[in-house]
């Protein structure tokens, strides 16, 4: 399922290189001619993913960003689906597919896994053509993390800090101080790669990579025990931690699910023009923390805040039968950006240890 083959054939030839950073960034800069290159950029005191005008703007040593690049650039916060016109005949037009060829550089391991998760939603039995178009027009240059942030627990979820997947993205970088270990994963990326001063990566380089990984793993402060986790949550839907957290702390503000890189929920909205001649049908991210989300005529299956909070947490830590994987990649964003600091790993722990 990884990547659904969206990123083309696997690289066929030797494809691991040691590349001086300056040389790597020169190469990346050269790609801006034919690609929109998006990467982590320091703005004020935060890092955000946006299109760069020069590789000098990149801040590759960033901690987590508020929004994940995959959710913003492959999915999209708001996007037109159809333009419908009433005239003599009712016509339904799809907006033209974006021809933009994009590179997302420096996407962390967890966020790369989050893209694989979104693939499950948008490239499943029904394929979303807008997502599919962008996914195949986007090259992902993943970056292994050197250190965890305060709320990261990707190591518990098998989604980081180093990316273990072999498919579904185009290139993997490991920071080796003055050089990157560049592992090329797809043929289309190999064809493109012509940085100067590269040398092929030998066993010694991979030994350094392993060392880096071990040191990155030592920086984690947050963990979660996934052993029997889904069952523990399923069997304790009325554990007091749900109601207590919802009543005392949860604001139903939906920041958690908006920043979550795997949350795929959206609304479909019709906007009529004032002259009644056209309709713009678009989708935009929606949130299960909103009371209206599950409302139907005559009832609301998640009218209670407790139920909504539980939906979020169990969708991340239980409900594994949906896609066969956990819904969280352990990026910690929902914890960081919750105004009251609600921490799903703490809630899980309370339930796992049967503490009230």
């Amino acid at each position, binding site marked *: 399922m990884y990547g659904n083959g969206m990123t083309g054939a696997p690289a066929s030839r030797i494809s691991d290189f040691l590349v001086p950073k300056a040389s790597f960034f020169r190469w990346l800069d050269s790609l801006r001619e034919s690609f929109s290159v998006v990467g982590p950029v320091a703005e004020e005191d*935060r890092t955000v993913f946006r299109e760069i005008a020069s590789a000098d703007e990149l801040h590759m040593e960033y901690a987590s960003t508020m929004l994940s690049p995959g959710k913003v650039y492959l999915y999209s916060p708001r996007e037109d689906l159809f333009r419908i016109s009433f005239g003599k005949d009712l016509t339904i037009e799809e907006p033209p597919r974006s021809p933009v060829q994009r590179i997302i550089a420096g996407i962390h391991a967890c966020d790369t896994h989050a893209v694989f998760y979104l693939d499950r939603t948008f490239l499943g039995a029904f394929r979303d053509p807008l997502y599919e178009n962008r996914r195949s027009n986007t090259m992902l240059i993943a970056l292994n993390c050197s250190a965890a942030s305060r709320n990261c627990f990707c190591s518990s979820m098998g989604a980081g800090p180093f990316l273990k997947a072999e498919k579904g993205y185009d290139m993997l970088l490991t920071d080796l101080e003055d050089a990157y270990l560049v592992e090329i994963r797809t043929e289309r990326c190999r064809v493109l790669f012509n940085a100067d001063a590269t040398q092929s990566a030998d066993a010694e380089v991979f030994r350094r990579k392993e060392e880096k990984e071990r040191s990155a793993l030592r920086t984690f402060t947050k963990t979660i025990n996934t052993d029997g986790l889904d069952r523990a949550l399923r069997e304790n839907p009325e554990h007091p931690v749900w109601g207590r957290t919802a009543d005392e702390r949860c604001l139903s503000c939906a920041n958690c699910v908006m920043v979550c890189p795997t949350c795929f929920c959206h609304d479909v909205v019709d906007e009529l023009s004032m002259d009644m001649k056209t309709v713009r049908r678009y989708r935009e991210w929606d949130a299960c923390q909103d*009371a209206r989300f599950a409302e139907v005529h005559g009832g609301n299956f998640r009218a209670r805040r407790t139920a909504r909070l539980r939906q979020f947490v169990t969708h991340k830590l239980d409900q594994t039968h949906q896609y066969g994987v956990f819904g969280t990649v352990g990026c910690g964003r929902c914890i*960081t950006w919750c105004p009251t600091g609600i921490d799903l790993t703490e809630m899980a722990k309370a339930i796992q240890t049967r503490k009230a």
Partner: protein
Amino acid sequence: MTRPRLGFFKFSCCAGCEFQTFYFQKHPAETLAAFEIVFAKMVLRGGAPEGPFDLALVEGTITEAWQADELKKIRKSSALLFAIGACAVNGGIPALKALAPELEVEGKVYKNLSPIHSIRPHPVDAYIQVDGYIRGCPPGERDLHEALTSVLAQKKPGFLRCAVCVECKLKGNICILTAYGMPCMGPVTNAGCDALCPTCKRPCYSCFGLMKQANAPALAKKFRSLGLSESDIRRKFTLFDADAALFSKADKLNED
């Protein structure tokens, strides 16, 4: 198709909603073309306040007894009636006077109190049933557009009811509450403004009013932890929503 007959009525407020509707929003010309303006003081001399109306838009807080009577008449002569703007929807700024003894407040404004006949301020739905709320100060473009086009298309309007935070995140704003500790009301405030204030790095003032599922006590607790005093917090929750009598209503909202 005949154009729907529109009446725009103003009670205690700044008339900003009427200006927003007819001058400032993205489609003023289309609005004027799509509706037959029967009564609207800011665009039409005279007019027929007695109606009948297909749509009445009512702005302003009800602060005098005659306004309540007038409002009931408008309701009778209108097929649809929407409250528009923070004043009509939540009480808004004019309702601030409910927070202090009446004579004291009035004495701050008027030298001679004898001709003043004001009553306790209330939003319009304290007196009549309304068909929809176009929230905000000034009213949000999206809900205003939805309201007007829904009337034209003869369908039920779908207004936003989630938190401002949702729109704030859609815009990719760094959260000023979480990142910088600014006391933002966004998490409890009804969306619709496209996160106007947080986008300008100003904490939300809650001009769209508390959303239905707001957990006001939990946000108040958060504000306390940021060092806000009880009176600071009280002011935050009552600036536009004084009529909700702060925590009495907010408490009820805790479990919706």
